[in-house]
């Protein structure tokens, strides 16, 4: 038995007279004195923290006996620290901590708003009118869960309620949960919506007014400029005319067929995304940027993106929808059979005679699926438009005729017709464009056919009998086997070719000037002499 440590029971008794191994029975009084001394030592208050060892040990042992953690001896030091910490707090705390509202509480408040049911009167009125179709998000979530894709059940339910709110607020005809796009700071939840007729007209009116006002401003400025031109000599005007702007597609057609609403979290207000223009789609194809989660964030890129994050988001949504929205072949058919041959076939309707093929067949061959969204052409629209037609409208342009001759004739672009089978989608290198799987091999009668897109990772579609649905969960970028190479900046403009006409010649030096002068005088003198000679001859 070596020197005893403080926590061992034999401490302090190693002094002569107190060892338990002595034959002499120590004086009971002396023993009591020793105990009292030890206790007094333990009770000695520390000058720094106002605690004493005795109380501290008592607290530690109480805590240990109350909580009974596993392997106490390994964490005894930490328990001791915790007890001290708790002590310190209570004694020195004279100020009350400000009651911090935890963010959980705020989030819960927002979600609470979703759960509030409307008043009874409104319910009766709604039943009389046409109920816009609320998508059954939970049912869709169930089918996708079979494939291992989807959100938390809670979140799906919140989204469900948020969509219900959206329908009540906006004049909506059909609504669908499009998917979720992840971002750096916040994510986007997206709803695809078709507005009712009245709503669209209002917007068109607003836009028309805005453009008229701008047009007026422009003419006002032009007048001022004309006046100034008369006064000052202007530097030569540049003859550069930007390529004509390709007009965006109208509401309800082509890329703008659906209107999209986004929110960062269910419970936050829905924001409507602006219509997409072809220029934005063309630019979005060239850049690859993460979404930050804030709709007003600028998109810094080259080539410069015309718009902020809301426009970029809308452009990506348009591309993803055009590339990956599929349905079982035959589910949709053209409204008028004659229109199949024309390119203008835009409308489709559900086929009442559709018989769903069995799930096994849907997985085996990709010919059982078809796109039901028109693909986007290179121009950025679904329906090709000839940009040179616009120049006829500009009557103020003097060089109009020259322009038309100089412009190359742009080839009319044709995209794949509307209901093409996805088996005709090109793959990239060796990878097919789609991967099909059945959700389970063990229970074939209830399995669901799942389609994953390889071109847009994150796009999924499922089909089971007559039900089918598309959804997107991902970062919002296309898959490319090669790395993304940003466009190179255009070459610097060439300078005006330098020729003898404009090259500045060196001024003649003094000697050269003198030599030239002397030569001239000689010539004059010769001429005079010639004349003199002639005069003399006479």
């Amino acid at each position, binding site marked *: 038995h070596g020197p005893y440590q403080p926590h061992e029971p034999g401490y302090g008794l190693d002094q002569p007279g107190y060892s338990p191994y002595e034959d002499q029975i120590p004086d009971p009084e002396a023993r009591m004195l020793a105990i009292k001394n030890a206790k007094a030592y333990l009770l000695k208050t520390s000058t720094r923290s106002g605690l004493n060892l005795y109380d501290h040990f008592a607290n530690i042992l109480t805590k240990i006996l109350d909580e009974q953690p*596993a*392997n106490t001896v*390994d*964490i005894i030091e*930490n328990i001791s620290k915790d007890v001290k910490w708790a002590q310190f707090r209570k004694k020195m705390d004279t100020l009350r901590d400000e009651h911090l509202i*935890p*963010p*959980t*509480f*705020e*989030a*819960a408040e927002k979600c609470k708003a979703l759960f509030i049911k409307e008043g009874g009167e409104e319910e009766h009125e709604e039943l009389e009118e046409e109920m816009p179709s609320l998508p059954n998000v939970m049912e869709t979530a169930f089918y996708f869960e079979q494939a291992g894709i989807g959100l938390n059940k*809670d979140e799906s339910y919140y989204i469900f309620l948020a969509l219900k709110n959206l329908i009540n607020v906006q004049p909506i005809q059909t609504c669908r949960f499009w998917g979720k796009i*992840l*971002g*750096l*700071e*916040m*994510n986007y939840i997206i709803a695809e919506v078709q507005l009712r007729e009245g709503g669209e007209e209002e917007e068109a009116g607003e836009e028309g007014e805005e453009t008229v006002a701008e047009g007026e401003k422009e003419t006002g400025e032009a007048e001022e400029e004309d006046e100034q031109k008369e006064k000052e000599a202007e530097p030569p005007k540049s003859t550069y005319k930007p390529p004509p702007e390709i007009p965006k597609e109208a509401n309800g057609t082509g890329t703008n067929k659906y209107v999209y609403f986004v929110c960062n979290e269910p419970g936050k207000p829905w924001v409507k995304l602006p219509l997409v223009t072809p220029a934005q789609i063309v630019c979005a194809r060239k*850049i*690859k*940027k*993460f979404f930050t989660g804030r709709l007003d964030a600028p998109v810094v890129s080259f080539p410069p993106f015309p718009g902020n994050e809301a426009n970029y988001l809308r452009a990506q949504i348009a591309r993803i929808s055009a590339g990956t929205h599929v349905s079982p072949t035959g589910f949709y058919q053209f409204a008028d059979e004659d229109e199949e041959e024309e390119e203008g076939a835009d409308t489709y309707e559900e086929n009442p005679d559709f018989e769903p093929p069995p799930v096994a067949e849907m997985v085996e061959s990709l010919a059982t699926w078809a796109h039901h969204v028109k693909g986007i052409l290179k121009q950025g629209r679904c329906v090709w438009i000839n940009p040179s037609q616009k120049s006829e409208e500009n009557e103020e342009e003097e060089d109009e005729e020259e322009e038309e001759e100089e412009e190359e004739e742009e080839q009319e672009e044709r995209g794949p017709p509307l209901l093409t089978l996805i088996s005709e989608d090109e793959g990239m*290198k*060796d*990878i*097919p464009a789609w*991967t099909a799987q059945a959700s389970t091999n063990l229970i074939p009668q209830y399995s669901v056919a799942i389609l*994953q897109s*390889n071109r847009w*990772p994150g796009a999924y579609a499922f089909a089971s009998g007559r039900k089918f649905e598309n959804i997107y969960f991902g*970062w919002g*970028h296309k*898959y490319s*086997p*090669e*790395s*993304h190479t*940003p466009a190179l900046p255009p070459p610097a403009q060439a300078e005006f070719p330098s020729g003898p006409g404009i090259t500045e010649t060196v001024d003649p030096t003094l000697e050269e000037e003198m030599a030239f002068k002397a030569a001239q005088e000689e010539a004059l003198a010769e001429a005079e002499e010639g004349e003199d000679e002639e005069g003399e001859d006479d």
Partner: protein
Amino acid sequence: YRFERLWFWGCIQGVRGAYYIAEGLGPDRAAPRSRLYSLNCLDWSLLTPATKEMLALAEQVKGRFQGDPSFEYSLAEINAEAAARLIESGKEPVIKEEARLIATIEQIDRAVGIVPRGAFVKTPLGSVHENRHFEGLSLVEAKKLSSYFHFTEPVNLKNKTLLEKADLDPSTDFLDSLEHDIPRGSWSIQLEKGGTVVVLRSLLWLGLTFYHVPMTKQFGYVYFGTGEKNLDLPFML
């Protein structure tokens, strides 16, 4: 296999099928991990540890995984030099998908396998154990990138200034923190569900998700993705 801890690492999606990966550890948490893979979650096969050659070769291979472990990528197309070297040493110039799988998992773990600060302690003998007294990060700490560490051999630890080193506690701060990851901003931190869960997503390996419930011992990470490094990251930020 005599694992003390076993967990589901994630899923790498190939074109024709998906690989499900599980990892297991013995008593020393910092030892090289044993990995098992399965195509259907029923039959598991052990993967051999990664060698440097495998890592080097696998970095050359680009594109999706095929979903078939015996698929062979022909190296001649990808890198003629490496193929030539292999031919000289008597092997065929191919790399099997299994080897690529091993190398990819190792790369992902090394690059983006993270743990919260304080979750693991290093004993003076050098072995690493879980900290049984770890009670979770506080909400404020959970939002900072510096409270998370890479769970691999530290690279930058010795480069810190003396001032920073004074604040560190050598038993818990023996790993690299996420703050100095290149490029900056390659992690996305989000608080979900009103702050009850903090989720970190890696932008370098798209699909790696790490979660932690503050003030509790729960944390973990999982990989669900195509198994490709996001080389376009600098353009995307």
